[in-house]
């Protein structure tokens, strides 16, 4: 199965490789947003040649936001939603109550996980192992969980079990700079421990530039079946309808 859906591959796709069964942790900061990485992986998953079903959990933006952005990238989210290839979980209004209510009320993270699992098990056989779960973003999930880092980690852990048991892929975005003043940034460290692929967006060491918006570092830990550590670093420029990726100094 061609993972990038037949589109010409770019540096990001090469660095990430096949997504099946992997957990991709995306880290960014206020200076350099990595939202475009999420959009790119979403578009890649929904390409016509790939059978992937996407479950998108949003704590950050409503459906219309992603619909507008993906439309510019050439992907119709509304149509994909109607075709049952794209499922949107709007968690913007969710707020954690307490542990007991979590189990009884049925609208917390435990319930969300239950819904995700049920959705996957209800899929036709051939689609069961090409599911991508995306979370935008983990820091807002923590806010909605009233700071309960453990609950967020439990949720991520359970989603991770889906990657190892069913071959799903998991993509989660978090903001590194939020934890920079914390002595022990547990949440982001735990995510880095859990992740098989870590994509970090940072500003250039030399500061702002017109033609380069930042740099991406992709650490691919290998899937444990022969491929080993791969560390890539390259620059990017976010344009209106696409993103350019290039090695430093290779642009004229």
């Amino acid at each position, binding site marked *: 199965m061609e993972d990038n859906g037949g589109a010409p591959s770019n540096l990001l796709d090469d660095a990430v490789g096949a997504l099946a069964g992997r957990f991709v942790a995306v880290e960014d900061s206020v200076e350099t947003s990595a939202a475009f990485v999420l959009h790119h992986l979403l578009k890649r998953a929904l390409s016509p040649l790939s059978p992937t079903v996407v479950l998108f959990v949003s704590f950050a933006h409503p459906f219309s936001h992603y619909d507008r952005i993906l439309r510019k990238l050439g992907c119709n989210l509304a149509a994909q939603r109607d075709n049952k290839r794209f499922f949107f979980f709007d968690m913007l209004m969710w707020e954690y109550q307490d542990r007991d209510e979590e189990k009884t009320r049925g609208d917390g993270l*435990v319930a969300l*996980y*239950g819904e995700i*699992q*049920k959705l996957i*098990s209800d899929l036709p056989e051939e689609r069961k192992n090409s599911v991508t779960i995306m979370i935008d973003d983990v820091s807002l999930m923590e806010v909605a969980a009233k700071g309960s880092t*453990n609950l967020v*980690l*439990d949720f991520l*852990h*359970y989603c*991770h*079990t889906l990657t*190892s*048991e*069913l071959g799903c892929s998991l993509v989660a975005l978090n903001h590194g700079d939020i934890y920079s003043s914390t002595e*022990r*940034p*547990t949440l982001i*460290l*735990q995510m880095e*421990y*859990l992740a098989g692929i870590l994509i970090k967006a*940072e500003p250039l*060491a030399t500061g702002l530039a017109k033609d380069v918006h930042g*740099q991406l*570092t992709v*650490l691919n*830990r290998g899937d*444990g079946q*022969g491929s*080993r*550590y791969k*560390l890539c*670093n390259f620059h990017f420029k976010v344009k209106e309808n696409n993103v350019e990726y290039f090695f430093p100094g290779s642009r004229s």
Partner: protein
Amino acid sequence: MPDIKFHSFLSTFFLGSSRLDCYSDPLGWKDGFSLETSNVASSCKNVKDVHKLLSTIIELGQGLVGQGKVRFSAAIDSVSEMVRHASVSSVSGLLSNLRSHDQVSSIFWLLHSDLHEDRVTAAFEYLSTMVASVEPLNQFGNGQRSNMNTFPLLEQSFAKGKFHVRFKRRNGRVRVACEEVRVEQSDVNFTSVSSDNGMINEGLIPKVQFNLQLSEKERLDRASVVLPFEHQGNGKPIQIYDGRRSLTNTKDEMTSVSTGKSETNDSSKGEIIYFRDSEDEMPDSDEDPDYDLDI
């Protein structure tokens, strides 16, 4: 940091050829949903109940070796996960109890020290007879998390590291060993530490965009600079270098000073007698420049 996993699953007890799966459903969220799981001997659905966990481990172990004199080992991946769900004291209690059980020969556990406060790591180290720790080869000087400015070091640190071991012997003595560990495709290789002090110094020197050290050529050039007023003592007239012209091309314009031996001491000419009082010091050396002041 080298990523040495015991298995491809987290939070799993591995008992000889038996596994207690605390990874797939540690909190019972999957109750009611049946997912196809691989044939695992046993699974734990409530890792918060440490007492139950302990008895399950012992049961499984005894199931493997029987009730006789044969003993079993337990490996825990990872204690860091356990401590998320239960208190440090209860997890320490589990380890202590396991350790003192007649049929348990040894226990191995994994702890990610960067996820816990020092006292938590210390508590588990205290319990153990051997502590093996893996650290990056190059410690970042100010303890900062790695970022792009440290990219070359980052690249190295994922496949290699320093492996420290501290054994507590029965006679009370402590033995410490250190090796370099390299994670290959399917292997982990240990070699003795390379005594490359340059590597250590790299970590201590701040990373700025200008050179704080001298290159070899610069060192040689510096050594061959002729200092003004220095007594060269090779019989030739000393030439004072006034700093504006090179020594070689303007000989006739140079002022010569008598060496004081073979030439007459003309009282109308000035003389400069210079004795170098100390060896050339490297900048920023620790020596106090005023130590030989005689006030």
